[in-house]
């Protein structure tokens, strides 16, 4: 069964209104603990078709023959008619098949040593998993689109346990490295997350400045992401300035892939332009509903699911970046949030947030004492308006789509 045969099947079901997606992926993963190791090699191929007859239909299979068998089944299932989006056109060269990836580096001993040194022996690396993956994706559609692209990534997670006296704390930190493995930063994050909560001290600062570590900023930005893909904004967000005028929020996945999961070219979009809400992110369907151009934000998290409208690589941008060291020095009295200890709660509809974090009290630009757990909660709109400064983007986190972290300083926050 060739893709051409599937294309003919789809054309018969929905003339001029179909899309065929194909993915080949391979990965190698090494998971290590102190006394166990697991090496995993995965190869996956997947096919997915969407068509509008004019009801939206989706079918996916791990083989072309499997997909061909599903198409008539899906075509006969109940589904309500809907608008057919305007499908993109264009062609690109097909990159060579990525081939099997190399084995990822075994970094367990080195990271274990760094974690131990950074925590003065209080934290122990319990597990490290590093995965190197490569993929080749292709999208074709009825109007003649045929684009392909390849991608590679080095991702994984590290887990550690901190112990002090009879108390213990466990944490697991995901990472994604774009270049060389950034082990010192990972070790520091693991140590903070596993040892700071052991201090059992509450914050002495009830109200003051809040300095957010890159991972905490990324979580806040990830919590805001649905704002940029919503058809209608909550009143507080639509009212006026969201952030101070020197700060913007950008989604730019051009460095990741030249196209999104629907074949629309990736491009840079200012979702918050100098403080105010800018251009929304659109996939094909939402662009059709809004009468706008798609922005390349139809995201496929797997070939098994249809593309969803989502941010792809979101990050803060500022006209006046300040280094993390200078941000710390500028804190008169506040708390540095080193890591979240519970998922950030963001209620965009009702303009509320709640963050539980572990960190360090900062007075006159100097770290004073650890804070085992603190809570900041209130209005999201106030939190955003009170952003005083931020550092240049430092790192991207898979949440699950990529979100950039930067050190962020917020004025006048209450802590519990």
């Amino acid at each position, binding site marked *: 069964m060739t893709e051409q045969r599937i294309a003919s099947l789809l054309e018969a079901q929905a003339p001029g209104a179909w899309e065929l997606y194909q993915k080949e992926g391979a990965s190698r993963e090494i*998971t290590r603990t102190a*006394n*166990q*190791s*697991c*090496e*995993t*090699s*995965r*190869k*996956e*191929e*997947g096919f997915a078709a969407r068509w509008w007859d004019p*009801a*939206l*239909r*989706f*079918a*996916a*299979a*791990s*083989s072309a*023959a*499997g*997909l*061909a*068998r*599903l198409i008539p*089944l*899906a075509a006969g*299932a*109940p*589904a*309500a008619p*809907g608008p057919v989006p305007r499908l993109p056109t264009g062609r690109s060269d097909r990159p060579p098949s990525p081939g099997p990836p190399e084995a990822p580096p075994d970094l367990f001993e080195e990271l274990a040593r760094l974690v131990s040194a950074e925590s003065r022996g209080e934290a122990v690396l319990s597990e490290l998993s590093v995965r190197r993956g490569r993929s080749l994706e292709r999208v074709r559609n009825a109007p003649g689109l045929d684009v392909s692209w390849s991608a590679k990534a080095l991702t994984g*997670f590290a*887990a550690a*346990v*901190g112990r002090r006296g009879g*108390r*213990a*704390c*466990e944490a*697991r930190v995901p990472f994604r490295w774009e270049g060389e493995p950034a082990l010192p930063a990972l070790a520091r994050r693991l140590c903070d997350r596993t040892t700071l*909560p052991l201090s059992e001290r509450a914050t002495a600062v009830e109200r003051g400045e809040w300095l957010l570590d890159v991972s905490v900023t990324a979580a806040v930005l990830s919590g805001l992401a649905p704002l940029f893909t919503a058809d209608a904004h909550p009143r507080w967000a639509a009212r006026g300035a969201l952030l101070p005028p020197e700060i913007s929020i950008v989604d730019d996945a051009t460095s990741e892939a030249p196209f999104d999961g629907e074949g629309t070219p990736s491009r840079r979009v200012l979702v918050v332009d100098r403080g105010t809400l800018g251009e929304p992110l659109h996939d094909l369907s939402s662009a059709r509903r809004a009468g706008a151009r798609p922005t390349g934000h139809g995201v496929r998290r797997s070939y*098994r*699911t*249809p593309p969803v409208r989502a941010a792809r690589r979101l990050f803060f941008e500022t006209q006046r970046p300040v280094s993390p060291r200078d941000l710390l020095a500028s804190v008169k009295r506040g708390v540095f949030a080193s890591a979240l200890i*519970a998922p950030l*709660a*963001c*209620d965009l509809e*009702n303009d*509320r*947030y*709640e963050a539980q974090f572990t960190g360090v009290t900062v007075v006159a630009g100097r770290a004073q004492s650890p804070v085992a757990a603190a809570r900041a*909660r209130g209005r999201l709109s106030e939190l955003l308006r009170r952003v005083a400064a931020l550092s240049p983007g430092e790192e991207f986190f898979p949440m699950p789509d990529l979100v950039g972290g930067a050190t962020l300083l917020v004025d006048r926050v209450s802590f519990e």
Partner: protein
Amino acid sequence: MSLDPSTVARSIEPLARQSGTIADVLVERRREVTVVWRDGEAVETRFVSTEALAARWQRAGEQRLVSLSRVDESGLREAVRELQTGLGRAPIPLRPAPATTSPQQESAPAVERWSKRLASIFSRLAPRHCFRWTLQEVARDMFPAGAPWLSHTRRLLSLEGSFTAASRRGDEARPFSFHSPESETTADELRACLARAAEPREVPTPGPEGETDAVLAAGSAVMLFHEILSHPLEAGSVSPLSGLQEARLAVSDLEVRDDATRLDLFGGYEIDDEGVRPRPVKLLDAGRLAGRLTSRASTERLEREASNGHGRRAEVGDPPLPRGSNVIVSAGGVTREEMARRLGQGLWIEEFAGGSVDLARGSFRLLFPRARRVRRGRLAEEHGPGMLAGEILPALRNVESGLGRETHPYRGLGWCSRWGQIVAVQGASPDVLIRQLAVRARV
């Protein structure tokens, strides 16, 4: 089955010649249909059909696994070859792939039948809604080296989303989730669960803060015991329960077991993903800590007998981990009214939206979307979303003697994620009264 068991055995058995070695092949075929429902209309239908094969080798602390999304003889040879190459052994020779067999006929899923049933249920009970209905059929064949091959199939149904329900001061959106193996009674059970969820209620007030006693009713205590017993007792986990074998931790009428053989519950299965038939495992026996959940890979001895059948893989390409399945709490003799009277002041909770446990710290959290205040033994006002929190050992100590008389399956729990590996779980429990938990409202 498209793989000949004798061919698989010939391929995999040379890898397990040394004693203390595990070698196996797992094959999965998954068919899934999802219908998105909005206000009585099926607006989108998705069909997914996947196949995957994984070959695994394990000896002492070293494990290797190769997975492919192709289930045929050449896929098997490719996986075994890669495993052999990784182990530094001479790989089996490549052979041209045999002629492909004629395509299998996809079994027509029961979409039409279910669409009629769902349309009727929704129109009567929750006409305004956004639900995602999924029916998946997962067939797994396990070929362990040195043992006969085993096969099992599960058909699992889920309905998740939200609907608009009437409350005394207007409409409100309520979340709803229901997970059950597909059977003749599933539709009736779904109807009953949705009817209960759609009952008119008071407008909730913000949740309480501080310390509270609570009755976990309608089977929802499954969530508590899943977090504070099932996870800590997965082999290899280090938690406050480690080293407390046979210690008395709770009242003597508290009996909790993990039972994967309960196929009427979402987490049940006939064989685990290492080819071992599961056995019910007592986690708490008359208040004393009893067994642990083990897999072949997690035990010192790698024999099949050392495992109690809890080696589970989320995906075929994942290494098996010891995981829980269905948490079953034995019933007592207390009626619902008596339970409320015993509670006196506190919270009456019938559903949880999620939970987590920090094994190293020994603490847990359970998120509830709403709760009823109980005053002087009577149900009073409604509270909005909140969180119960506590520590494992004190929570077990604070479970009151006298459990509810009826055991209810808790269909709201369907999936459990541990380190990103998601497996089906569920359980059944009577009403449970627990004292001195921390509670607070949440966003």
